Protein backbone atom coordinates (compact mmCIF):
# COMPACT_ATOMS: atom_id res chain seq x y z
CA UNK A 1 0.00 0.00 0.00
CA UNK A 2 2.86 2.34 0.75
CA UNK A 3 4.39 1.51 -2.55
CA UNK A 4 5.60 5.01 -3.22
CA UNK A 5 6.59 6.17 0.25
CA UNK A 6 10.27 6.30 -0.66
CA UNK A 7 9.67 8.27 -3.84
CA UNK A 8 7.33 10.71 -2.15
CA UNK A 9 9.81 11.49 0.59
CA UNK A 10 12.63 11.77 -1.86
CA UNK A 11 10.58 14.16 -3.98
CA UNK A 12 10.03 16.25 -0.87
CA UNK A 13 13.75 16.18 -0.28
CA UNK A 14 14.52 17.36 -3.79
CA UNK A 15 11.90 20.08 -3.67
CA UNK A 16 13.24 21.35 -0.35
CA UNK A 17 16.82 21.26 -1.61
CA UNK A 18 15.92 23.19 -4.74
CA UNK A 19 13.80 25.67 -2.78
CA UNK A 20 16.61 26.17 -0.30
CA UNK A 21 19.06 26.73 -3.10
CA UNK A 22 16.68 29.23 -4.61
CA UNK A 23 16.46 31.05 -1.29
CA UNK A 24 20.21 31.09 -0.89
CA UNK A 25 20.72 32.52 -4.34
CA UNK A 26 17.84 34.96 -4.50
CA UNK A 27 17.45 36.57 -1.08
CA UNK A 28 19.49 39.67 -0.36
CA UNK A 29 19.08 39.40 3.37
CA UNK A 30 21.95 37.31 4.66
CA UNK A 31 19.90 35.69 7.43
CA UNK A 32 17.40 34.55 4.88
CA UNK A 33 20.18 33.28 2.69
CA UNK A 34 21.33 31.17 5.58
CA UNK A 35 17.79 30.00 6.18
CA UNK A 36 17.81 28.94 2.55
CA UNK A 37 21.05 27.11 3.10
CA UNK A 38 19.62 25.39 6.15
CA UNK A 39 16.58 24.25 4.16
CA UNK A 40 18.89 23.09 1.38
CA UNK A 41 20.81 20.85 3.75
CA UNK A 42 17.59 19.56 5.28
CA UNK A 43 16.44 18.62 1.81
CA UNK A 44 19.70 16.82 1.09
CA UNK A 45 19.37 14.94 4.37
CA UNK A 46 15.88 13.82 3.48
CA UNK A 47 17.12 12.59 0.13
CA UNK A 48 19.80 10.60 1.88
CA UNK A 49 17.45 8.91 4.29
CA UNK A 50 15.03 8.15 1.47
CA UNK A 51 17.78 6.40 -0.44
CA UNK A 52 18.29 3.99 2.42
CA UNK A 53 14.60 3.18 2.69
CA UNK A 54 13.46 -0.29 1.84
CA UNK A 55 9.79 -0.87 1.20
CA UNK A 56 8.16 -2.16 4.35
CA UNK A 57 11.45 -2.07 6.22
CA UNK A 58 11.80 -1.33 9.88
CA UNK A 59 14.47 0.51 11.80
CA UNK A 60 17.72 -1.44 11.70
CA UNK A 61 17.58 -2.45 15.32
CA UNK A 62 17.47 -6.05 16.41
CA UNK A 63 15.36 -7.36 19.21
CA UNK A 64 16.70 -7.99 22.65
CA UNK A 65 17.98 -11.41 21.68
CA UNK A 66 19.86 -10.01 18.77
CA UNK A 67 17.66 -11.57 16.11
CA UNK A 68 16.49 -9.78 13.05
CA UNK A 69 12.73 -9.68 13.35
CA UNK A 70 11.84 -8.12 10.06
CA UNK A 71 13.10 -6.59 6.90
CA UNK A 72 15.46 -3.73 7.74
CA UNK A 73 16.07 -0.45 6.05
CA UNK A 74 19.66 0.34 5.16
CA UNK A 75 21.55 1.61 8.22
CA UNK A 76 24.35 3.19 6.21
CA UNK A 77 22.57 6.28 4.85
CA UNK A 78 21.16 6.88 8.31
CA UNK A 79 24.61 6.89 9.78
CA UNK A 80 25.74 9.26 7.07
CA UNK A 81 22.84 11.61 7.66
CA UNK A 82 23.75 11.88 11.33
CA UNK A 83 27.10 13.24 10.27
CA UNK A 84 25.53 15.46 7.67
CA UNK A 85 23.13 17.01 10.19
CA UNK A 86 25.94 17.85 12.54
CA UNK A 87 28.01 19.34 9.76
CA UNK A 88 25.00 21.39 8.71
CA UNK A 89 24.67 22.78 12.21
CA UNK A 90 28.37 23.62 12.41
CA UNK A 91 28.33 25.42 9.08
CA UNK A 92 25.10 27.26 9.84
CA UNK A 93 26.38 28.40 13.21
CA UNK A 94 29.58 29.67 11.65
CA UNK A 95 27.75 31.52 8.92
CA UNK A 96 25.51 33.17 11.49
CA UNK A 97 28.51 34.15 13.56
CA UNK A 98 30.02 35.73 10.46
CA UNK A 99 26.82 37.62 9.82
CA UNK A 100 26.73 38.92 13.38
CA UNK A 101 30.25 40.22 13.06
CA UNK A 102 29.62 41.71 9.63
CA UNK A 103 26.53 43.43 10.92
CA UNK A 104 28.51 45.09 13.68
CA UNK A 105 30.78 46.40 10.99
CA UNK A 106 28.33 47.92 8.53
CA UNK A 107 24.91 47.70 10.15
CA UNK A 108 23.47 45.99 7.16
CA UNK A 109 22.17 42.55 6.43
CA UNK A 110 22.17 43.10 2.69
CA UNK A 111 24.72 40.92 0.94
CA UNK A 112 25.12 43.62 -1.69
CA UNK A 113 26.75 45.89 0.85
CA UNK A 114 29.71 43.59 1.35
CA UNK A 115 31.55 44.01 -1.87
CA UNK A 116 34.78 45.55 -0.66
CA UNK A 117 36.74 42.83 -2.36
CA UNK A 118 36.36 42.43 -6.05
CA UNK A 119 38.10 42.10 -9.38
Amino acid sequence: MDQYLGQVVMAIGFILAILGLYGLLSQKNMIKMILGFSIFTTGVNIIMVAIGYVKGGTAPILDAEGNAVAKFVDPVPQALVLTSIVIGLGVTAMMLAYVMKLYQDKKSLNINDYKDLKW
Partner: protein
Amino acid sequence: MLTVLAAILGIAAVVGAYYAIHNEKLTAAIIASGIVGMVSSILFLLLAAPDVAMTEASIGSALTTAIFFFTLNKIRQTNG
Protein backbone atom coordinates in the same frame (compact mmCIF):
# COMPACT_ATOMS: atom_id res chain seq x y z
CA MET B 1 -1.52 5.43 4.65
CA LEU B 2 2.01 6.39 5.46
CA THR B 3 2.39 7.71 1.94
CA VAL B 4 -0.56 10.04 2.38
CA LEU B 5 0.81 11.20 5.69
CA ALA B 6 4.20 11.75 4.12
CA ALA B 7 2.61 13.72 1.31
CA ILE B 8 0.75 15.93 3.74
CA LEU B 9 3.88 16.46 5.78
CA GLY B 10 5.73 17.15 2.60
CA ILE B 11 3.27 19.83 1.60
CA ALA B 12 3.66 21.33 5.05
CA ALA B 13 7.43 21.28 4.71
CA VAL B 14 7.37 22.86 1.27
CA VAL B 15 4.95 25.54 2.39
CA GLY B 16 7.11 26.16 5.43
CA ALA B 17 10.20 26.42 3.29
CA TYR B 18 8.49 28.76 0.86
CA TYR B 19 7.31 30.85 3.77
CA ALA B 20 10.78 30.88 5.33
CA ILE B 21 12.29 32.14 2.12
CA HIS B 22 9.67 34.65 1.14
CA ASN B 23 8.36 36.09 4.36
CA GLU B 24 9.66 39.56 4.98
CA LYS B 25 9.47 39.10 8.71
CA LEU B 26 12.58 37.36 9.91
CA THR B 27 11.06 36.00 13.10
CA ALA B 28 8.30 34.29 11.18
CA ALA B 29 10.75 33.01 8.62
CA ILE B 30 12.94 31.45 11.26
CA ILE B 31 9.98 29.76 12.90
CA ALA B 32 8.87 28.48 9.52
CA SER B 33 12.29 26.99 8.94
CA GLY B 34 12.13 25.39 12.37
CA ILE B 35 8.86 23.82 11.34
CA VAL B 36 10.52 22.43 8.23
CA GLY B 37 13.04 20.83 10.56
CA MET B 38 10.32 19.35 12.74
CA VAL B 39 8.43 18.00 9.76
CA SER B 40 11.50 16.42 8.30
CA SER B 41 12.14 14.81 11.64
CA ILE B 42 8.74 13.14 11.44
CA LEU B 43 9.48 12.11 7.86
CA PHE B 44 12.59 10.37 9.14
CA LEU B 45 10.46 8.47 11.60
CA LEU B 46 8.18 7.39 8.78
CA LEU B 47 11.19 6.09 6.91
CA ALA B 48 12.19 3.96 9.88
CA ALA B 49 15.07 6.14 10.94
CA PRO B 50 14.51 6.89 14.60
CA ASP B 51 18.14 7.75 15.23
CA VAL B 52 18.09 10.38 12.55
CA ALA B 53 14.72 11.68 13.68
CA MET B 54 16.02 12.20 17.16
CA THR B 55 19.06 14.06 15.95
CA GLU B 56 17.12 16.18 13.51
CA ALA B 57 14.60 17.11 16.16
CA SER B 58 17.16 18.27 18.65
CA ILE B 59 19.87 19.65 16.37
CA GLY B 60 18.23 20.45 13.05
CA SER B 61 15.14 21.87 14.58
CA ALA B 62 15.73 23.10 18.11
CA LEU B 63 19.35 24.16 18.27
CA THR B 64 19.54 25.62 14.79
CA THR B 65 16.41 27.66 15.32
CA ALA B 66 17.74 28.87 18.63
CA ILE B 67 20.98 30.02 17.09
CA PHE B 68 19.06 31.87 14.41
CA PHE B 69 17.08 33.63 17.09
CA PHE B 70 20.15 34.52 19.09
CA THR B 71 21.67 36.03 15.99
CA LEU B 72 18.55 37.96 15.15
CA ASN B 73 18.29 39.19 18.68
CA LYS B 74 21.87 40.34 18.68
CA ILE B 75 21.37 42.17 15.43
CA ARG B 76 18.28 43.96 16.69
CA GLN B 77 20.23 44.85 19.79
CA THR B 78 23.10 46.31 17.80
CA ASN B 79 20.61 48.25 15.79
CA GLY B 80 18.77 49.83 18.64
